């Protein structure tokens, strides 16, 4: 992509000699890069965010906007998700103060999630999973069919179990990311589009001294690699291979429906298994939810097809079939469009957050695999706490860069 030349805003310069060198350059202006940049700039750092294309138009623009605790079992990712679920509304509230209500509008909606089982076999795994989550502090209320019908009147009557997760929330991912970027800019930071990160420069000591870009070298004290599914490429070009792989997903979007047709994030209990699994080349698990515009989103598939973005009708068919299983009422609803994107995942399915011990000054924030919108707020917070040496919000060790699954497989891949 090229930098637009006819947009009303002044064309960004890849190298602006009038401003002092940034303390940190964030490569990637998706929601993760934006959240890191926001948190770093809130800590007083001078931040510059780069994107090879347009901000918030890659993986971020392909997501449903999930802020979930319901889909994670006890463990480090759930801890990060819980921290992020607490952080998002606080962050948006403070940004509303700072930027004004319109500038910080991200369509935050604490609508709650409803996970349902439709077979007898799925009952025990779901209720056991919910019990374990309750042990980790998640609100996971097992409810009966009557209560489920009350919460979601159009839901199929053929439920065998249902769990209500009042903490699950949703936001509009592009608005969320661009709100964070607006805050970075308001604090004197920069956002540059159409600038590709190509590698880093280093001091004689071996530490990062700058970032090489398609628009020249930008001197800086540190670089954050927030390139999402492309983070492995950038890491390799910086000489520190990282195992981050793309996993494709597709979502269907219906025409606008009457209010209340779908009220929560409703998903089939098989979702839980699919998120944690890396086995199958194609998995679909049903997630049905409405947006503020009245459309219903139907997700989501997980395919390992590299960066191939061609349409696969069998995937769309499977999404449609399973959504009808949950909401038979949607049978005659028109599907207006389908879109797809690539999630970034690490082989052990945990995010990668922290400084790279192999290259001082090189930080990574990636591998959030389809949970990046929800995990972004705490990811930015954690990265900044590690940077400033403050007490981290969650134990950072499980996300560290130099775990074998990430660096050794990264070396093998590179």
């Amino acid at each position, binding site marked *: *992509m*090229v930098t*637009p030349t*006819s*947009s*009303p*805003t002044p064309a960004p310069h890849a190298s602006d000699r009038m401003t002092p060198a940034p303390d940190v350059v964030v490569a990637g*202006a998706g929601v993760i890069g934006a959240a890191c940049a926001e948190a770093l700039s809130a800590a007083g750092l001078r931040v510059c965010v780069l994107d090879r*294309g*347009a*901000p*918030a*138009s890659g993986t971020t*623009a*392909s997501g449903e906007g999930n802020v979930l605790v319901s889909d994670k079992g006890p463990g480090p990712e759930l801890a990060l998700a819980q921290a992020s679920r607490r952080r998002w509304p606080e962050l948006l509230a403070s940004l509303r103060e700072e930027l004004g209500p*319109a500038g910080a509008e991200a369509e935050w909606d604490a609508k709650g999630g409803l996970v349902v089982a*439709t*077979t007898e076999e799925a009952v025990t795994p779901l209720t056991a999973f919910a019990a374990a989550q309750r042990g980790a502090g998640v609100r996971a209320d097992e409810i009966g069919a009557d209560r489920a019908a009350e919460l979601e009147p159009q839901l*199929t*009557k*053929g439920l065998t179990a249902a769990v209500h997760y009042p903490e699950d929330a949703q936001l*509009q*991912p*592009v*608005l969320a990311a*661009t709100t964070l*970027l*607006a805050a970075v800019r308001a604090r004197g930071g920069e*956002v540059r*589009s*159409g600038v590709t990160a190509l590698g880093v420069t280093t001091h004689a000591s071996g530490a990062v001294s700058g970032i090489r870009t398609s628009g020249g070298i930008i001197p800086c004290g540190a670089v954050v690699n927030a390139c999402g599914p492309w983070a492995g490429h950038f890491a390799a070009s910086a000489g520190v291979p990282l195992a981050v792989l793309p996993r494709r997903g*597709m979502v*269907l979007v*219906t*025409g606008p429906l009457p209010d209340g047709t779908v009220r929560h994030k409703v998903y089939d209990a098989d979702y839980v298994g699919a998120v944690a699994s890396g086995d199958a080349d194609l998995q679909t698990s049903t997630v049905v939810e409405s947006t503020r*515009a009245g*459309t219903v989103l*139907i997700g989501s598939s997980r395919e390992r097809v590299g960066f191939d973005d*061609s*349409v*696969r*009708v069998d995937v*769309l*068919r499977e999404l*449609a079939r399973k*959504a*009808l*299983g*949950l909401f*038979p009422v*949607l*049978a*005659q*609803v*028109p*599907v*207006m*469009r*389908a*879109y797809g994107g690539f999630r970034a995942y690490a082989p052990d399915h945990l995010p990668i957050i922290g400084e790279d011990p192999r290259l001082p000054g090189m930080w990574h924030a990636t591998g959030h695999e389809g949970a990046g919108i929800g995990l972004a707020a705490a990811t930015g917070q954690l990265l900044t706490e590690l940077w400033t040496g403050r007490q981290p919000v969650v134990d950072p060790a499980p996300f560290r860069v130099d775990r074998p699954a990430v660096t050794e497989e990264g070396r093998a891949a590179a």
Partner: protein
Amino acid sequence: MSGGVGDARVVVVGAGPAGMAAARAAAEAGAPVLLIDSGPGLGGQYHRQNALARQERFTLPDGVEHLPDSVVWALEKVPAGHRVHVRTGPADGPGRRGRSIDTRALVLATGAYDRALPFPGWDLPGVTTAGAAQAMAKGQGVRVGERVLLAGTGPFLLPVAESLTAVGSRVLGVLEANDPAAGWLTEPAGLLAGRGKTGELAGYAALLARHRIPYRRRSTVIEAHGTDRVEAVTWARLDRDWHIVPGSERRIEADAVCVGFGFTPQLELAVSARCAIRDGFVTVNTAQATSVPGVFAAGELTGIGGAVLSADEGTVAGTAAARTAGARSASGARPGPPVRALRRVRSGGRFAAALGRAYPVRPGWQGWLREDTLVCRCEEVCHGALRRAVEERDALGVRSMKLVSRAGLGPCQGRICGRNVAELTGLPESGVAFARRPLAAPLRLSELAEPPPGAATPEPPAAPAPPTDVTPAPPAPHEEQE
């Protein structure tokens, strides 16, 4: 689904002049042909507009199966070529039938639709595209208004003036935003190539004179006024780049405005197939082959040149597709090149290129808009909202622009507004930015969910919504029926 006669079939999408010619040529070259079109009859948009006047009846050779009322909603790459997913039946009816066909030789002839540029008041009833007004006049004998102003650019405005006059509208003027006389003089090669067209243009000039219809160059409609519908129109002189000449604004009473600023090709299937696209049109070689093996394109998809050129391109594409499909004539010979059509496509192509240079859309149109002028009518997104999306939300890509502003997310999925949004906001790839539609046409969730036959019966959903409206036909040996 591999092997067998099915693979030899040429599939043509679009039954306008280009698609019909392609189907005919492929069949004459010995290939079985499936001709798919969204309309109920043959002829496409071009001939549909002439339905009353000509009562044309088209015949196709044996070997062409015509599939009317059918939309291609997805195109998939498969090892043997491409899989074309079709729904057949009235778009709003419950009983559309699904079908999927594999082909080694696909001809895309999906045509183009009128381009409208936004201006204050363009969303009032009484403002139509020139093409829609002509279709109403010629197809149904309906008048779009009593006092009609025609504005836009290109020679295609002139036959519209003729049609409107024929049904009794008073045409207050034809406002041509460019200065075609100057344009044509600088294009002698194209002028020569299009000499047949020049005669046609002279005929329209006589019509304008006979009906005392003013033809104004470098002028256009810049605002429509009215409460419930158009009551008056402001038009103005334009400079070379289409900026309004200050002080030249004139108000005139009118109850209809028809606008046509060239055409936007219907690109989604070509984009789905990953055909190379340049300047908003599919690029083809002399055999009308696109950059993708096994995919050909003909007609307005490849450049705007009118029905005659489209048909010649269709003949070339159909013949080439038949060869690709491995067709043999009855005598066993491979089809030879369609020499005459090839020659005419060469000279016609020059004419189309000259036409494009003489009637470009100039950037000054962006200055006709006000902050509150709607750009996307489906989602009611105004010019100011687009500007704010760029300035305040970094919406510098198609996806982020759509999700921030909601432009292009409504029923037309950006077909009407996409190019205008892209140009107004400086999005890259303005010609194709909004044409990436994995679902090329909307369909019901239950239609999408239907299992392909022959597949093992999938486990039924918990509360199955049986597709009672569909009677699956038995699978033919060489295709998949849904």
